[in-house]
């Protein structure tokens, strides 16, 4: 027994402190910022503004689920904003240009996202291109295809019904529809990643792919599944975005990859894989959400917002690198 006590106290004190910030750092930062913002601007802590923040965050938070699960496995997909556009263009294109039932169009849009993820997985798994570079290339390809199809114009029309727009604009019991979708997806993925083989294997591959192979895991199958799920999450985000806008253009969601990755990293997903909790990504997304919202309320120009976002991402990454060092 005495030895067990030893492990608990002296030599690990440093690690326990590191763990403290790892676990509570972001929640504390979120709480502090939330309180400061609430007291410094009376328009911040109101029901409508909170719903605004949630709605503005929801799309990023949904797509960040895909980014989180990929990053836990030690992979990454930076083509997600382009995939969002592909799904948006497919869905709206089918509805407006071909008069196809919106439900079928949405299903096709989601399948398109899944195919985009599947293509990424082939590049990464079989051609063995590093995920960052492979998806940097497809980022450009997918985006280009969207511009080619839309010829640079918006697609809109009466075929886009109110029912379709409800996905992005509607409310149920005063809660925005995108927020409800976000919550449902988070609940599903938190359960999958906590209680199923897919979750266990994702963490295992991110922790040590060789060990997982020797332990009988078909790592390629799991990675493929994760890329496809990532594509599907992007598709859902992209479709919600078109529903909110009531139209689509080739540049849909351009630049959102930034906030998505920041949310995942702020949530504690490690760049080196094996670590991260899906629920915390939501907290990361909300942290960015309140920052952006506050700057709008204070009339700070978007140029400053860009600088701030960059600093927040560097902060989150720096935190991750420092943590990794302590493990060694």
């Amino acid at each position, binding site marked *: 027994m005495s*030895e*067990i006590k030893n492990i*608990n106290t002296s030599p690990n004190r440093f690690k326990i402190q590191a763990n403290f910030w790892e676990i509570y750092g972001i929640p504390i930062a979120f709480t502090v910022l939330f309180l400061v913002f609430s007291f410094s601007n009376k328009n911040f802590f109101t029901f409508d503004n909170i719903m605004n923040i949630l709605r503005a965050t929801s799309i990023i938070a949904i797509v960040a689920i895909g980014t989180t699960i990929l990053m836990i496995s030690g992979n990454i997909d930076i083509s997600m904003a382009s995939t969002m556009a592909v799904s948006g263009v497919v869905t709206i294109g089918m509805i407006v240009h071909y008069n196809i039932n919106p439900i079928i169009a949405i299903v096709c849009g989601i399948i398109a996202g899944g195919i985009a993820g599947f293509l990424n997985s082939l590049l990464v798994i079989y051609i063995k291109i590093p995920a960052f570079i492979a998806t940097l290339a497809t980022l450009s390809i997918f985006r280009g295809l969207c511009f080619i199809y839309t010829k640079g114009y918006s697609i809109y029309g009466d075929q886009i019904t109110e029912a379709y727009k409800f996905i992005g604009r509607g409310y149920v019991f005063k809660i925005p529809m995108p927020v409800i979708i976000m919550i449902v997806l988070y609940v599903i993925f938190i359960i999958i990643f906590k*209680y199923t083989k897919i979750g266990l294997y994702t*963490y295992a591959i991110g922790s040590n792919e060789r060990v997982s192979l020797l332990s009988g895991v078909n790592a390629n199958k799991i990675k493929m599944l994760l890329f496809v799920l990532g594509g599907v999450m992007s598709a859902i985000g992209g479709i919600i975005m078109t529903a909110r806008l009531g139209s689509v253009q080739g540049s849909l969601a351009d630049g959102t990859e930034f906030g998505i990755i920041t949310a995942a990293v702020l949530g504690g997903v490690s760049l080196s894989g094996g670590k991260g909790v899906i629920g915390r990504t939501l907290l990361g997304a909300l942290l960015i959400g309140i920052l952006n919202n506050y700057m709008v309320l204070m009339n700070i120009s978007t140029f400053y917002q860009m600088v701030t976002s960059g600093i927040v991402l560097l902060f989150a990454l720096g935190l991750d690198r420092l943590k990794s060092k302590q493990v060694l």
Partner: protein
Amino acid sequence: MDNNYILEIDNISKYFPGVQALKNVSFKIKKNTVHALVGENGAGKSTLIKIIAGVYTPEEGEIKIDGNIVSYKNPADSLKSGISTIYQELSVVDDLTIAQDLFFGEESIFSRGGFISFKKMNNEAKKILDNLGFTFNVTKKVSSLSVSEKQQLEIAKAVNKNAKIILMDEPTSALSDKEIENLFKIIKKLKEKGVSIIYISHHLDEIFNICDYVTILRDGMVIDTLEVENNQEVKDKVVNQMIGKDLSKIKTNRFKKINSDKIVLEAKDFSTSNGVKNVSFKLKYGEILGIYGTVGSKRTELFKSIFTGQNKIEGQLYSKSKLILNTNPEKSIAGKLGFLPESRKEEGIFLGLPISKNIPFILYGEESKLGFLKQKKGLEATKKYINLLNIKTPSPHQIVANLSGGNQQKVVLAKLLAADCDILILDEPLVGVDVGTKNELLDIVNDLANEGKSIIIISSELPELLRISDRILIMRNGEIIKEIIENFDQKEIISYAIGGKK
């Protein structure tokens, strides 16, 4: 005073946490000789090499070169004093040309105003290689060379650095017979040039072929230094000294003759691309089959290939009399065949995950309901093995990286045991485990076999292997050279393994 010795090792001791790796080691190496260093796995050879090469610093004792005391802070110091080491893993850079690799780190001697004259470098490289009798095209990439040619390149590098002593660690382990012959010619040439060689090998016949002196290490101590004479008497003496006298009578509590006709695993003419040659064996139901062989005997390569399906080039594999064509770890585990890898940290364990995810990992894969993990069962298994193997941890949810090395090893073993496989292949399960746990592990293995599991246990620790096995296969150079069914004699087994007996 005229000094006959190029290298003197004087009273060196080295401690690692919990073990004394070297105890007052002393020996001298004469100028212009080839001096062999032999000992069983774990006798302290690697530690000694690393001390001479400047990788480790000894706690006690001194090293003298040409009569002068030297102290090494890092490998560069050792290199500067004239010692070059050629490790089993060759340190050549595949993407450089042969000339560039030969002068790696010394490019500045061919530099003029910051530009390197590759023409000069190539000419100089050709000169050095010609001098040694190597005929390489120096402008070709290193990657185009065979293993033995890469080794020759390393020797050339050592000569170029004016090495007075060249350490060769198991230099023949990846060479064919003809290449070995060639290496011996090179060694003789080096001797003529005034270079002394420290030759580490498990192969007695090589030592008696090329070496002038042999120093025998056992349990971190120098047992003796002998002048090599090629006769059976000296050979027997070396073998005796390697294993010690008291060990030839070992208590054996198994050695059951397994009469069952049920063969659970069979290999026929199994060969791999990394050195296993035409191996055939049968594993019976409920049997513990011991595998003994020195480093380089390809025992790990054989069983890893059986489990993973990788590197196999020929042969058939039958599991429970069913022919297995293409296998991979996933299929092996589905077929209830489990493998405990030798390198635990790299291949056996998820350092970043908690114990409660590591131990039931394979179990979770085998048994899940609609993909949902049976977490209750998993946690029960975790607790059971923490108790059974006495894993020291504050909680089952502790991250494995925070455990000590020995406890991490136990987690790897627990992970395999919890998987409930019918056939277990354990590669060096006793390495790094303290004596008490060793006995516990052997008891567990014994119980498993009595319960009807069939077990292959690969170990360098002969006394333990003798204690637990029903039958022992001895491997050497990728082949099974002897099957021992009864009258287990430790000396005889080692003789077979190192080639003192054929």
